């Protein structure tokens, strides 16, 4: 009866609490363990480290956002990693070309951005159309396009990296909303939007808080939450993942919606590629591939069922945070980097096990009512 009163939707939110709890435990663990191992001066939750974690998760999260929608609809997009790489190369080439023909820097950046968008829409249309119209399983289509994009990214970049970009674009990828200068020099304090002019000696005391890529990602996360929870688009995504035939009979334009979902997935991946160009002042044909598995892991740790029909954007955010906290924390504990993979792998399997036993517990509670 008590469970009855809470209502099922609330219940499923609350039971998902373990992910929040796990994240909190991880953070507490690293806060206490890091100073023990690395000396009292190093703190896990310092501004600098927390910002490093945020910067580290932006690409994983951007890849994971579109993927969340795709997997909820019952599909999967294995191409997002190489899509990111491809967009990184193509937008860097476009940006460099714009710069070389003498466009002002912001216009050159805009060219790179447009190239990114074109990549996102093009790749998504390619994947989505073959999946929706020609009924080839998404696993196969996106596996194929991952290979194609890998080849194209390496071809276009000529040797994995596109260099020769104007140095000024660094600011777009690395500057931030806030600055904080530590210590007790005359410069110490908070700065908003304007980067303080600092002498070299103090420069190392400055932290960037919420860099532009983090801000852009946060805006996309907010839009994705809204899209999935509050709009028809989100409702149709769940419906298709829950019962595709029912969605068709209800009159949902299923094929068109599926195509849109793959466009969404590749567009957020391309955005991640573009942001990496701004961040590193270079295009890279190998930047996305290692992120693919992390992004899928984030989605799954976040509670999206691979069978489709359930999951949330917030879950994916927590999943990405768990992965980022784990990896940076282990590095700070001087654990050999390979252990990161082993730990993340265990967490993925554990997450699914917990979700499955939760479903079993819920079912047995319901039958007992």
């Amino acid at each position, binding site marked *: 009866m008590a469970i009855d009163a809470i209502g099922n939707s609330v219940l499923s939110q609350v039971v998902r609490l373990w992910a929040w709890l796990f994240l909190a435990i991880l953070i507490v663990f690293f806060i206490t363990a890091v100073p023990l191992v690395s000396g009292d001066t190093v703190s896990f939750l310092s501004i600098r480290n927390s910002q490093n974690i945020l910067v580290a998760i932006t690409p994983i999260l951007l890849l994971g956002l579109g993927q969340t929608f795709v997997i909820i609809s019952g599909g999967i997009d294995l191409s997002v990693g190489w899509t990111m790489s491809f967009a990184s190369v193509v937008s860097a080439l476009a940006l460099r070309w714009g710069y070389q023909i003498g466009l002002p820097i912001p216009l050159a950046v805009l060219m790179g951005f447009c190239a990114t968008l074109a990549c996102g829409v093009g790749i998504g249309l390619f994947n989505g159309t073959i999946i929706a119209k020609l009924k080839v399983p998404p696993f196969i289509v996106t596996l194929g396009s991952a290979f194609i994009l890998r080849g194209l990214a390496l071809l276009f970049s000529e040797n994995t990296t596109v260099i020769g970009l104007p140095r000024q674009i660094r600011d777009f990828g690395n500057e931030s909303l806030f600055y904080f200068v530590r210590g007790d020099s005359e410069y110490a304090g908070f700065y908003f939007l304007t980067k303080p002019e600092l002498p070299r000696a103090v420069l190392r005391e400055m932290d960037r808080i919420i860099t532009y890529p983090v801000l852009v990602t946060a805006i996309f996360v907010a839009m994705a939450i809204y899209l999935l929870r*509050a709009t028809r688009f989100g409702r149709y995504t769940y419906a298709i993942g829950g019962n595709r035939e029912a969605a068709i009979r*209800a009159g949902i334009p299923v094929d068109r919606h599926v195509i849109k979902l793959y466009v969404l997935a590749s567009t957020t991946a391309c955005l991640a590629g573009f942001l990496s160009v701004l961040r590193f002042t270079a295009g890279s044909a190998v930047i996305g591939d290692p992120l693919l598995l992390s992004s899928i892991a984030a989605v799954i740790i976040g509670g999206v069922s691979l069978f489709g029909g359930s999951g949330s954007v917030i879950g994916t955010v927590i999943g990405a945070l768990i992965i980022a906290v784990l990896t940076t924390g282990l590095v700070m504990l001087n654990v050999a980097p390979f252990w990161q993979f082993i730990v993340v792998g265990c967490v993925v399997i554990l997450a699914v096990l917990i979700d499955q036993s939760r479903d079993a517990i819920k079912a047995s509670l319901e039958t007992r009512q």
Partner: protein
Amino acid sequence: MTAEPILSVRGVTKRFGGLVAANNVDLDVYPGEVVALLGDNGAGKSTLIKCISGVYAPNAGSISFEGRETRFATPIEARDLGIETIYQDLALAGNLDVPSNVFLGRELEHQMLSGLLKRLDNRRMAEETQRVLSDLDVKLPHLDRPVETLSGGQRQAVAIARGIYWNAKLVIMDEPTNNLGVPEQKKVLELIRRLKASGVPVILISHTLPDIFAVSDRLVVMRRGCKVTEKNVADTNAEEVVQYMIGALDDTEAA
């Protein structure tokens, strides 16, 4: 009948590979009448109504609705013209809650920023769902549960609620009393009478002969994809209908 039929099916044929599931079927439905569709398992009843509701494209034949020839490429076109169907397999999204299913494909929305941004109006959908369910005299403990956690009968009620919410011009029910308890079965029959009284014709597929005789005006018997007879309910009886269903009688052979 003097009035024009609201639905007119002519020579509809639907094949699945070599199997002819519906074979050259004619069917007329007039305003305000209940037409029963009977036949053994696999006779082709569901196939025929899926041709009418836009799930299947027939291989041959034509369908006219309100005097206009129609060719539904998708179920939404049939729904938009006012044909609502309650499918035998219910066609609910089990992971969504009750209002989401009732309004699936036709969600109510808030307009924001003069229509630029739209947001689902979940509260109004829940209220409307509650209203249509109480019209049906159905009580569900929670509307905000995934439909897959409901009982078979409750799910049936949700499917029926969706079918009647939209002020349809024609309601098709494929074995709607399946899974229902006796009181709920009575309510469905009552509902069919009410639809008829308000002028909405119903195509009713059922294996329960007493129900059919209780609410229908006309009945059509199918066997192995073909229509074998069509009778006014007043002019026949259960025994004769069974004879048609098992193939002992067949008007097409006689003709």
